[in-house]
């Protein structure tokens, strides 16, 4: 793979050598102009704010820019030490890792399985309708889904539990028991996003040459053999790429999903890092502390990303780069 890429650039270099600067700009100039806007976006909204990471090492102050503020205690690491001494941060770290890990194990294969199922449907119109229906929850916000979850799953007034009660069964505490809440959280995540995430796999599936299926049929492979030997290998690089990106997010945390689904009885499992940052930083004005937490989160995320990529390369896969 690497060899191929290197030869490509060599070829490019050669052709560039033959072109003058003017010729080159005439041919590709518009592309650069089109690139300008996203580059400006990234500089203004992604890179410039990074200067404020400095406030993780400075005294808590939002009035002055961080470079004018005095360094924090302990050689600037006061807030990191404070965070790790803070019980709530440790709980939040534990909950973030637990929820994201479960999401990865259970949530990650879901769209792959769904995509395989959809791929096997032969009746085109039915396939298209099914696809549309499974996409739809993606467009609902977590606020709406949490409202739906309450109406359906509340232990006494929820529809599901009313049905159970009428059938003479005990209500299930989907939302107010910490263990059950975790499963409700994971399952709702799958319901919301699995359909949408099939898109990328379905696109990869169209790239598999039909000749491979025909050849497999000739060799006498049945439906499951074909899935195993043709479809899944065809999806492998997509799966690996997405898995690496997901691993990079293992310590990242969404805010609206746990915040909206949470309630006072399950805060022991639902308080994740983003909620910690919201409560202590934005509401509690501890900006330096929460910047430190955010920085820690990002650094760990980068390590996971690099590690996963390395492992992928080792196993002969292309990885993300």
């Amino acid at each position: 793979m690497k060899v191929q890429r290197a030869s490509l650039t060599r070829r490019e270099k050669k052709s560039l050598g033959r072109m003058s600067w003017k010729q080159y700009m005439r041919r590709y100039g518009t592309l650069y102009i089109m690139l300008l806007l996203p580059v400006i976006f990234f500089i203004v909204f992604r890179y410039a704010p990074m200067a404020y990471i400095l406030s993780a090492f400075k005294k808590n102050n939002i009035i002055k820019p961080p470079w004018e503020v005095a360094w924090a205690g302990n050689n600037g690491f006061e807030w990191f030490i404070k965070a790790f001494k803070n019980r709530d941060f440790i709980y939040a770290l534990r909950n973030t890792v637990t929820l994201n890990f479960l999401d990865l194990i259970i949530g990650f294969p879901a769209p792959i399985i769904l995509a395989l199922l959809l791929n096997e449907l032969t009746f085109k119109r039915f396939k298209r309708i099914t696809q549309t229906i499974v996409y739809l929850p993606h467009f609902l916000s977590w606020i709406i889904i949490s409202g739906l979850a309450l109406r359906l799953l509340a232990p006494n007034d929820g529809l599901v539990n009313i049905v159970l009660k009428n059938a003479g069964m005990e209500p299930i505490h989907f939302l107010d028991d910490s263990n059950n809440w975790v499963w409700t959280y994971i399952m709702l995540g799958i319901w919301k996003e699995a359909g949408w995430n099939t898109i990328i796999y379905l696109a990869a599936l169209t790239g598999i040459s039909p000749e491979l299926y025909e050849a497999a049929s000739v060799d006498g492979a049945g439906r499951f053999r074909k899935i195993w030997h043709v479809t899944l290998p065809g999806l492998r690089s997509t799966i690996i790429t997405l898995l690496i990106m997901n691993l990079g997010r293992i310590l990242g945390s969404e805010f609206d999903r746990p915040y909206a689904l949470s309630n006072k009885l399950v805060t022991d499992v639902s308080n994740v890092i983003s909620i910690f940052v919201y409560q202590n930083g934005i509401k509690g004005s501890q900006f330096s502390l929460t910047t430190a937490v955010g920085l820690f989160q990002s650094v760990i995320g980068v390590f996971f990303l690099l590690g996963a990529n390395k492992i992928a390369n080792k196993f002969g896969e292309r990885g993300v780069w």
Partner: protein
Amino acid sequence: MKRILSLLLVLSMLLSLGLVNASAEAQFVDGKFTEPVTITVEIYNRSNDGGTDPTNNKFTDYIKKGMLDKYNVVVEYVSVPRWTEVDEINNLLASGDAPDVCVTYSYPTIQTYASMGGVLDLAPYLTEHKDKLTNLFNLLGDYNIYYDQDPTTGELWAIEALLAERARINLFVREDWLAKLNLAVPTTLQEFEDMLVAFQNNAELLLGEDADRMIPYTTSYDIGWRNDHLLTSFVPDAATDDELYVNGFDDRHLLYPGYKEGVRVLNKWYNMGLIWKDFALYGSGDTTEDSYIKAGFVGAFMHNWDYPYRNGEESIIANLKRNVSEDANYIAIECFQNDAGVYRKFLADSVDRKVFFPYTNDQPLASLLYLDFISSPETVVYLQTGDEGVNHVVTENGAIQTVAATAPDIMNSGMNIDYTITINGLQLFDAELTGKSKALNYAGIDADDVVQALAASTNGGRTVAHYNVGAITAEEGIGTSLSEKRDAFLCRAIVASVADFDKIYDEGMADYLASGGQDIIDERAEKIGYTK
């Protein structure tokens, strides 16, 4: 291109310098600025249905015109969403755009800004201009104005508005259910519990085919506020002010002695099926509980002292009468006596919102004059009652009765509380008239019920003395996370089985104390030299 750009920059710099100079030249002569001076003032935006632009309506016009005529000060309003005001002020302060006059309910927030150098010290300005601020000093008194002054440095970061209405919380029961079941109004904890059981046992009779919807007593996740009279009735009457101050960081009185026994009662009731089962699942601002109350399923609840009476046609009472029957009604009662047999309630001190000037305020005098103007009796009365015949009518005995108005005359907040930032509560500067009018302040509600509610909420009231000991460093930045902890463990303790109650409560309290609660207690105790 570069040259043009730099020219433009220089030009705009010169221009802004010129502007600054112009306003700096304005002299204050004979009670008026010689040149117009502009100040900006924070105003809450409640985005209420049918409301007007909070920065530009008939009431802001009144203030703007008054300030311009009287002092030559131009007032501009900056609207800030009511429910995310602290987040918004954070942003405005960080970008140097905060309004000259800011207001918030959270003193710790101001303390944090002050320690970052973001707030003006008001003390020198108040001393210098005291003679020009008679209305402000008359309304608030030295007590409220210097409430937060640091005893050692003399710095003053904020002025406390006056809380003119001391009533906080009430216990409400369905008057018509008591009548239906031939029950007397309960006057003790035991009688109250018996009444709840009677509601539960007579659900068929009271609710007919909706019998399974019966909720004898309801609360929200905000256990401390919504059960306050019950919980604080377990605080020993002999507890001293010192003890209550040291244990008084939590505004729901969580750390007061005896509190746990109050929560134990709720745990018992929950396990007897007397409390709404799903209360802990709904967050702040959710209307599920209100809709059950309005539908007529709820026997009793505790809430803000006038909660069922607020909002005219949309009030709980109005809804209840529409949904159930004309006799359906909630009345305020007192049931919870403390160990001395007193119906004790802990009332807040006479302070309300906190007004502060950020460091970017270069017009402190004009800003103080603004506060003085909105504190003058004439302005307060006009803002609170509006125009006669439009916002209120005068009854035969001279009292002022509120009537519901629509845009452009609507008040975006009750009694324009968002504009009268130095006072909360009706103040007509005539005690008798204010008293008479208060009961008529609720469109469509029986005045006797309001009078009873006022009495029930303040009877046996106790206000813990104010200790001015300067900033308590252990309190900075920790309030929100401690409140979240408190709500979570109280909810868990209430839904626990009776056998598990002690374990869960004690674990929750230990976590609360270990997460900063104990440090606050210790620092407070040390500052006032309190030993147990």
